[in-house]
């Protein structure tokens, strides 16, 4: 009589147990993925910061070299003051056309 109503053997407990197991594994897997992502993000971020720091050192050297050049007295470097200054003439309107 029972078999005529339910042709397949059916039990709720194994079905729910299986679902719980799948969800638990998914949960753990999701945590693992998220934690790995977080770790990689932190690592990459630190890497970027380290690179920026290295660039900052180079920028410091560049700015120091600018200051050094502008502080330099050309006469102490063996150069003499120019005898004359030649100014570039304004371009004529004709030439511009």
């Amino acid at each position, binding site marked *: 009589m029972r078999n005529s109503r339910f042709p397949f053997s059916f039990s709720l407990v194994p079905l729910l147990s299986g679902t719980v197991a799948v969800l638990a594994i998914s949960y753990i897997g*999701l*945590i693992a993925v*998220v*934690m790995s*992502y*977080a770790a990689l*993000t*932190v690592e990459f*971020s*630190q890497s970027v*910061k*380290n690179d*920026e*720091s290295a*660039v*900052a*050192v180079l*920028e*410091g050297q*560049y*700015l*120091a070299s*600018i*200051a050094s050049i*502008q*502080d330099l007295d050309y006469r102490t470097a063996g150069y003499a*003051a*120019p*005898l*004359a*200054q*030649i*100014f*570039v*003439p*304004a*371009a*004529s309107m004709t030439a511009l056309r």
Partner: protein
Amino acid sequence: MRAQFRSRIRFVLALIILAALLVLVRLYFVQIMHGDDYALKADRQFASGGSGLFDRGAIYFTSKDGTNISAATLATGFLVAINPQTIQDPEAAYTAIAAVASTTLSHDAFLAAVAKKNLVYVEVAQHIPDAAGQALAAENIPGVQVLRERWRYYPGGTLASQAIGIVSYGSGDTLVGQTGLEAEYDGTLSRSGDSLYKNFFAELFSNVGNLLVNAKDAREGSIVTTIEPDVQTRLEHDLAAVNGQYSSKESGGIIMDPATGAIVAFASYPNYDGNNLQNVDPSLLGNPLVEQVHEFGSIMKPLTMTSGLDAGAITPQSTFDDPGCITVNTMRICDWDLKPKGVIGVKQIILQSLNVGASWVATRLGQDKFRSYFTTLFGQKTGIDLPNEGHALLGNLATTQQVNFDDMSFGQGIAVTPVQMIRALGAVANGGVMVEPHLVSAIRLDSGITRKLDWSHTTPVFSATAARETTQMMTEMFDTKLENGKAIIPTMSVAAKTGTAQLTDGHGGYYTNRFFHSFVGFFPSYNPRFIILLYTDDPQHVEYASETLDTTFLDLTHFLIDYYQIPPDRGFATSTSQG
């Protein structure tokens, strides 16, 4: 069978509930009853390592080709802390740490730190370079912790330090911008610090909105300034030279695009190195270019002249009788040489810098109109993006004594900030229109979007005709008077004016032998790329600005023409002059 199963289920449930209750009770005692104690203990143990690394947006210079160069950024390295309870060989530890410390590590101070046996964490060295820190960490010295650290770093050192500003601990326990752009744009530059260490899983479910539209990404970023590092370096170099040569109290300068208000260089001397604030005079941490007011002297005359021309009180062809000295409200006003000049044209007021002539223009203009023009020029803050901008001292505008207006016409009895002064004089250079001086052109958001700031607000003051007529007088002054005409640049028109003001003695009068020198100029005169304002406060053993600042102005002018390859604007043929 079913009853037995139910009883088992109930038993398991009871166990779970009991366990949950035990956990809840335990959490209650840990978090509520003893929470403060645990938090304090955690703070002591992980004062540095557990609080996250310092993070902050960058500030960039912009070179003439558009390249961004860091003005303020982050340096990465290590700090060294000791645990006095576990350190075994203090002398060996000191030797190892002192070998890598970037600053001198006091032996006595180190031993004093070791003696604090009630502590578990004492920082003894900071800002250690990356390689040295890693080498020290590899030694695994007992009781010595080598922890990752980030700190604010200014690659240019003193370069634009007062404009860039500093970060330091304020009233709280976090580093915040205290001065300069660091303070003005702190909301953009500061970081909340939890972006890397937040609970991603919790964020995923509890804060989905933030994952889709992150409000911080729309706020946090870096700022891009208009300061050009080469020009800034040159200006600072020249200011240091003039300040040293004349033993001035202070010298300053601003170089600005008069059409847009973009400030290319912004410096005062003395200044400081933002990387090393240990022995800095706190008074230097402010910015005198926006905070301090001065009586600028005769560089005010172009504004008086343009006001008179704009109002129709005078024309470029007007003449006046200059007796050398006049008496107004019982006060005596004199030209610099005290000599009568007879009937002369108004342009001589600019060419010879005549106080009596400027007073005559002010009288012709009338007090109401003078008040109106100068209130428009100086009555409001400029709106520059720096904190603590000062107000001009305009008390004499509210009086009715003509002598006060006469004084103001040549720059005495009216005190304004340098940035107000260059903004007002910029109106003469910019066809009579004042612009908004500014240091930051754009904000580069962490989201990747660059947001350009709007500085397009302008304030019309003079007619373009009046501004051009004054510019012609200033150009003639540069060509014929500066260094007795030797400063002329054959292919480039330059408009300029010097100013020498007596310093106030603090008792309502003026010193007769102490001065404030100023100099303003812009070029090419009729379509200027740059306006330069210079000043030096209380130079010693020299009276006139033409003696102190003309060399500096000429150096900067020639430098800018060469550096920016500004094309000639005059139709002179190729000319040669003796160098």
